[in-house]
């Protein structure tokens, strides 16, 4: 694979894969919902939709029609830390994709005519399972207007704030030359915007959120801890959390599954995952679904016991090796999919990592020690750093609170 930078600051990553005559073309912007200005929640996602509304040269729908005509697929997504646009097409069409994508980086039409109907549609999507935080709060979306959109576009949609990732049946020279001819013609604006989000203060108190709803048939427990990300952790710290997540809850051989589902039979499912590719401090999730007749409080206490066991007594060499083997194998399996590799690099580069970090990730995972994993559990999976959530059928929430007090007394 290869890495380059154009004179205007656009960063490029090329991932060759000559097994199928297909290319995946992605442009990532270093802005996501977490960069939404105060009071303007939803604007990153809003812009994502506006990017499909057309430019002077290519009216609304032309780009999508072009991709469809070529037999390609396209989509876009907004996450907390990045927004990305991508297409997959037969490889000979890479140049024209770059032309269109570069065009809408610079020449998007943002008139009232274009912006206003999209606000109506944005309200429609309040029901879509994207989730409210990225989509914004309804009362704020309703107020977003043309000037907001233009200001956001001018600030964030610039070549120095973007990363081009091209994977597939291509080579560095070809990609670079096509990029020069398209993206390369966009003048740099200056320095990329500094991303300064209000930082979460150190958590000091555990919080419990209970939600009861008549649509809930299957109750569930979740706990999310505030932990360092790949960008904010000390050396080896994020890798230890990655290994810990797999060991605790990455599948049927994990601690949570073994204890809660197999041995004690108080859960029908249990797991954990770590959202390490994040610019700021991030989330470590743990979840479990109770077996019939088991209260969420009892389940939650059991989850806590499994975590405490790791914090107090550490992990065995064989389970450590197993977790590392799996994670390292994932990196090999990812080589099989140009789209998966492209996403891996894009997500890493927009959340404070370098290309070399991605390449050396398997080696750093391999270097994790049992001590580091135990230390990670002790330091970061401490209850005051967490919010616990109980999802219950309607009418059961009051029992929950009372039982939790009783359960905590024994914890």
């Amino acid at each position: 694979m290869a890495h380059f930078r154009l004179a205007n600051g656009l960063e490029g990553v090329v991932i060759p894969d000559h097994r199928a005559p297909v290319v995946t073309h992605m442009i990532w912007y270093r802005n996501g919902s977490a960069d939404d200005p105060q009071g303007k929640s939803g604007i990153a996602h809003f812009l994502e939709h506006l990017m499909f509304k057309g430019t002077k040269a290519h009216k609304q729908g032309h780009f999508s029609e072009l991709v469809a005509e070529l037999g390609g697929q396209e989509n876009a997504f907004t996450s907390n830390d990045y927004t990305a646009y991508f297409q997959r097409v037969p490889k000979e069409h890479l140049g024209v994709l770059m032309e269109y994508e570069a065009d809408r980086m610079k020449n998007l039409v943002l008139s009232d005519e274009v912006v206003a109907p999209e606000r109506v549609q944005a309200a429609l999507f309040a029901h879509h399972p994207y989730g409210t935080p990225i989509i914004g709060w309804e009362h704020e979306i309703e107020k977003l207007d043309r000037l907001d959109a233009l200001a956001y576009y001018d600030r964030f949609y610039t070549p120095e704030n973007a990363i081009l990732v091209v994977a597939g049946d291509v080579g560095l020279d070809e990609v670079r030359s096509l990029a020069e001819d398209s993206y390369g013609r966009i003048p740099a604006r200056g320095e990329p915007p500094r991303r300064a989000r209000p930082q979460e203060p150190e958590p000091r108190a555990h919080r419990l959120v209970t939600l009861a709803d008549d649509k809930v048939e299957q109750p569930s427990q979740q706990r999310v801890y505030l932990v360092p990300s790949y960008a904010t952790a000390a050396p080896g710290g994020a890798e230890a959390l990655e290994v810990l997540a797999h060991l605790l809850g990455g599948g049927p051989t994990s601690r949570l599954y073994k204890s809660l589902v197999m041995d004690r039979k108080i859960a029908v499912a249990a797991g954990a995952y770590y959202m390490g590719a994040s610019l700021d401090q991030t989330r470590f999730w743990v979840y479990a679904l109770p077996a019939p007749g088991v209260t969420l409080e009892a389940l939650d206490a059991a989850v806590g016991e499994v975590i405490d066991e790791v914090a107090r007594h550490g992990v065995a060499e064989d389970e450590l090796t197993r977790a590392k083997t799996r994670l390292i194998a994932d990196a090999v399996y990812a080589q099989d999919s140009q789209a998966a590799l492209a996403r891996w690099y894009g997500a890493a580069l927009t959340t404070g990592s370098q290309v070399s970090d991605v390449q050396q990730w398997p080696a750093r995972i391999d270097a994790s020690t049992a001590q580091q994993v135990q230390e990670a559990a002790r330091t970061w999976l401490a209850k005051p750093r967490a919010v616990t959530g109980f999802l219950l059928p309607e009418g059961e929430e009051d029992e929950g609170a009372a039982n939790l007090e009783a359960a905590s007394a024994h914890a």
Partner: protein
Amino acid sequence: MKKAPAAPEGSSYAARVQPVEAAGFQTWLVEDYAVPLVAFDFAFSSGSSQDPDGKEGAVAMLATLFDEGAGSLDSEAFHQALDDKAIEISFSADRDLLHGRLKTLTRHIDAAFGLLRAALVEPRLDPDAIERMRAQMTANLKREAKDPDALVGRAWRETAFPNHPYGRAARGTLDSLPRIERSDLVGLRERMSTRASVAAAAVGAIDAERLARLVEGVFAPLPATSALVSVPDVNLAGMGQRKLIDLDVPQATIRFGLPGLARHDPDYMAAVVVNHVLGGGVFSARLFKEVREKRGLAYSVHSQLVTHAHAGFFSGGTSTKNERAAESLAVIEEEIEKLASEGPSADELDKAKKYLIGSYALRFDTSTKIASHLVHLQSEGFPVDYLDRRNQEIANVTLEDTRRVAKRLFSQKKLLVAVAGRPEGL
């Protein structure tokens, strides 16, 4: 490093496939050493349509149990053996097929096929594993109990295929799951996992000779013949009916459909083109333009052709506000009627063919996708060279073909519709 057999310049997928004979069937091999892994997919020709009466979900449950303990390894030991080497083995069932998938790094090929052999030849079906899987399937059903998509899908199927296995709940119901016994699962396994009708494909860093030995090792111990319950061919019923599932939600989820074509019907490719024009996954599709773009009625609306082994149908769906459900359905019906009477335009035909031909290559860009697609083709009864014929078949579809087939599919037909929500005016 080994070099795979070279394919002729700029051409043939089929030339890269080696049919490998072993254990009484062919495994289609694509030998490629670019990434140090092997993906092996296979399917037994029998699926959830084999569920015994009243025990819906049994085949799906059996599929969950193949990797829950085999031979001397109980569930935990089996999973550890997989995890120790990052080997992936999984099983699933659809209506007509029981699928197995294996993925392994090259250094663990032998261990991986050894574990697969154990899972297929000596699955333990331990009582505690059965209870664990039963509980997971039950929890999943409970989560879906008020899910509009699940509810509308079920109502539609029950009406479309009354008195036929295709109308039954493939993942079971809260009533049927508790009735499934170990003896049911043992019986199904004996009847279904056999060498009688297997489709298989392997992609990656392995040669034909080694593959043949490994496939022989896994499958040779299985019986040569199956004792399957025969599933009759069936036509879609319930045309013109509207099934309403009352759900207190702000959106109505709609599913609609009509009888379709069998996979080997000479008109099938023309029907694929027609469906693409109507509701294929592109912004230029008629339904997308009329329902979403013009009227803002829904975020997505789509249609597809479905070909089961014993039935073919056309179906589609959308979700919209309750107050606009009647309007959405009316627009959909109108667009289908319009297409039936006028057929696509020459421009639409041209664009549809370009899309369908251009997008074919995108199915073949990862080892697992290639393996899966090859198994799919084999199980539908196509030879290897179909990989190279398929695009030509699309190219050969004429405007007249599409007009005729649009009439054949849609003219004077009343949709079978199911809606979950509180749709006004329906």
